[in-house]
């Protein structure tokens, strides 16, 4: 029988997200967000308590593999979860306003005006039967009732020009199928930023584009966002893009955030076993003769509610406890946290 040695380091408590401890109020605060999908085959526990902050004028990256809940988190912020999905609980506070219990009419005033979103497939995201200029103008007309249609169209043209569309007057009369993917994404950006929103959600904005155009689009987005002093929630599975553009990053796994912190901390000094594994899978990190690393095991089924650390079955460091309790989020550095019992004892 081993004697329990009293630890010299005081046990650190999991971060209590319910208390407002931050020095400056974040623009967006997501707390314990749960989204479930009630399908015929059973309930999918897609988001199981997501905690996330986006500070003012910062670019927050969200990374994780397909199906981990990145896009659902983004859509939940806008309260646009398609049935059979439902936001079950949690809070989403934006600029001091709780969004989840807002009247649908009030919520519509936030969408497109204060929070906008750019999607992955620009050409599928534009209405094929409406001229692109009118689609940009529509965003303005929805939110500025005193604007005349012709004035809105004029402003839309100016916006198209400022996203680098040549001959904007002529291009605004084009239909989406007449544009290239890069041009369409510029239109999308114009459409979503023309109302000068405070938060832009970019859901894999470059994944569907040519590699040569990706950088241009990212640069364009960054420039505009800086000009507008807006924040960005950048969803991506491309760690390169995240490293280049984001100030902070949150790593998601199977419906919750496992690690969150400044980009340089998380990417260079990952603390959660999943983040470590994720970074090891990058081809750049493998030496020449070595096989590409992959995290063993499979992504867990989301048909069960979370009762343990969802990464535990694949984790090299898992202990008995990991299969019995859900780990809280522990501070592992300045503005850096990880949801893993390994860090229960602090840094």
């Amino acid at each position, binding site marked *: 029988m081993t004697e329990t040695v009293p630890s010299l380091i005081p046990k650190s408590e999991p971060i209590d997200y319910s208390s407002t401890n931050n020095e400056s109020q974040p623009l967006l605060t997501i707390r314990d967000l749960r989204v479930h999908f009630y399908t015929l085959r059973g309930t999918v526990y897609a988001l199981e308590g997501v905690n996330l902050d986006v500070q003012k004028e910062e670019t927050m990256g969200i990374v994780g593999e397909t199906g981990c809940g990145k896009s659902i988190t983004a859509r939940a912020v806008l309260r646009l979860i398609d049935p059979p999905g439902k936001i079950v609980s949690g809070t989403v506070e934006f600029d001091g306003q709780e969004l989840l219990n807002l009247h649908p009419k009030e919520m519509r005033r936030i969408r497109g005006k204060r929070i906008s979103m750019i999607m992955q497939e620009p050409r599928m995201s534009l209405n094929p039967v409406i001229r692109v200029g009118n689609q940009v103008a529509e965003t303005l007309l*929805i939110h500025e009732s005193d604007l005349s249609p012709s004035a809105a169209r004029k402003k839309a043209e100016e916006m198209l020009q400022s996203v680098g569309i040549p001959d904007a007057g002529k291009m605004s009369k084009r239909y989406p199928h007449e544009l290239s993917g890069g041009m369409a994404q510029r239109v999308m950006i114009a459409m979503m930023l023309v109302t000068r929103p405070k938060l832009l959600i970019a859901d894999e904005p470059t994944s569907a584009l040519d590699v040569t155009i990706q950088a241009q689009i990212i640069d364009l987005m960054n420039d505009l966002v800086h000009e507008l002093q807006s924040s960005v929630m950048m969803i991506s599975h491309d760690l390169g893009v995240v490293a280049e553009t984001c100030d902070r990053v949150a790593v998601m796994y199977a419906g919750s955030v496992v690690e969150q912190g400044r980009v340089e901390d998380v990417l260079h000094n990952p603390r959660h076993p999943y983040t470590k594994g994720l970074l090891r899978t990058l081809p750049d990190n493998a030496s020449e003769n070595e096989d590409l690393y992959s995290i063993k095991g499979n992504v867990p089924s989301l048909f069960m509610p979370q009762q343990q650390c969802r990464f535990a079955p694949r984790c090299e460091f898992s202990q008995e406890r990991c299969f019995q309790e859900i780990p809280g989020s522990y501070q592992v550095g300045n503005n850096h946290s990880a949801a893993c019992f390994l860090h229960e004892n602090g840094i």
Partner: protein
Amino acid sequence: MPAYLLKRLISLIFTIAGIAVVTFFISLVVPLDPLAAIAGPQAPQETVERLRVLYGFDQPLYVQFGHYVSRLSEGNLGMSFQTGRPVLDDIIQFFPATLELATIALIISIVSGITLGVFSAVYRNSWIDHFARVFSLIGVSMPVFWLGLVLMLIFYFKLDWLPEPGRLDIMLIEPERVTGFLLMDSLIAQDWEVFYDALMHLILPGSVLGLFGLAGIARIVRSSMLDVLSQEYVKTARIKGLAEHLVIVRHALRNALVPTVTVIGLTYGGLLEGSVLTETIFSWPGLGRYLTTAFLTLDLNAIVGGTMLVAMSYSLVNLVVDLLYAYLNPKISLDGEGSLS
């Protein structure tokens, strides 16, 4: 666009010429002697032979065909055996009534078909959806003559909400004939009583006929709306902060209308011909009734004239559908390569 229109109109002329040839030969293979029908069952053989000479049926086939073609090229459809008047005059008299009825029926089926289709797509698998399905099933499967009679029994005979069969109350005097459409003529004459009465007379036959087209339209609207509503651009419209009814009408429905237009065009053609039964039941003095009588009495010239008219309407409706299709779907350019023609 004008070049395309010209091309289509020229091809329309060829279509009509083709139809004229085909109908001529079809009328030849009818295994009955139209002259016997004109002369009557008791007529002696020499009367029939005299008629044969009179109508030129004794001539060799190529001479008959030559006459037929030269007659048609002058716009002469020949004389009707049953009315003893030029077929063209008959058509001008009877066709507007049919066109008016079919148009009202089309409006009824478009408005109700699109409404039903949109609601059943938006509230998919709800009671609205089930109701729409049952309703359009009734629409296609109820025989027109039965439904017409039942509705007449209820709304005219029992409830007396709607007027008797026919186009107009017999106590009312028809306004001066300008277009042949009672609704328009009464508007031109500013005769509101006639306008109201004519409209009331149109409701029952229009609904019975419209129910026939409703099912097809509702079904295609529902399925294309379901397809469109799951598209990314509908999500974009919501992200922009647009109210849901505008998302549906402005962004989804406009896209869903593209496949619907084709069905509407076919429906209109079907309504023009399909009015035969409705016209018979509702004593509607239209082309359907005229043609039924023509078929029953083997009135060849009337049959050929009517067939050509229906075929021509079909072609025109198709042209309009193609133009509308191009208007609704910017991916289709009418003049450039890959055009529709």
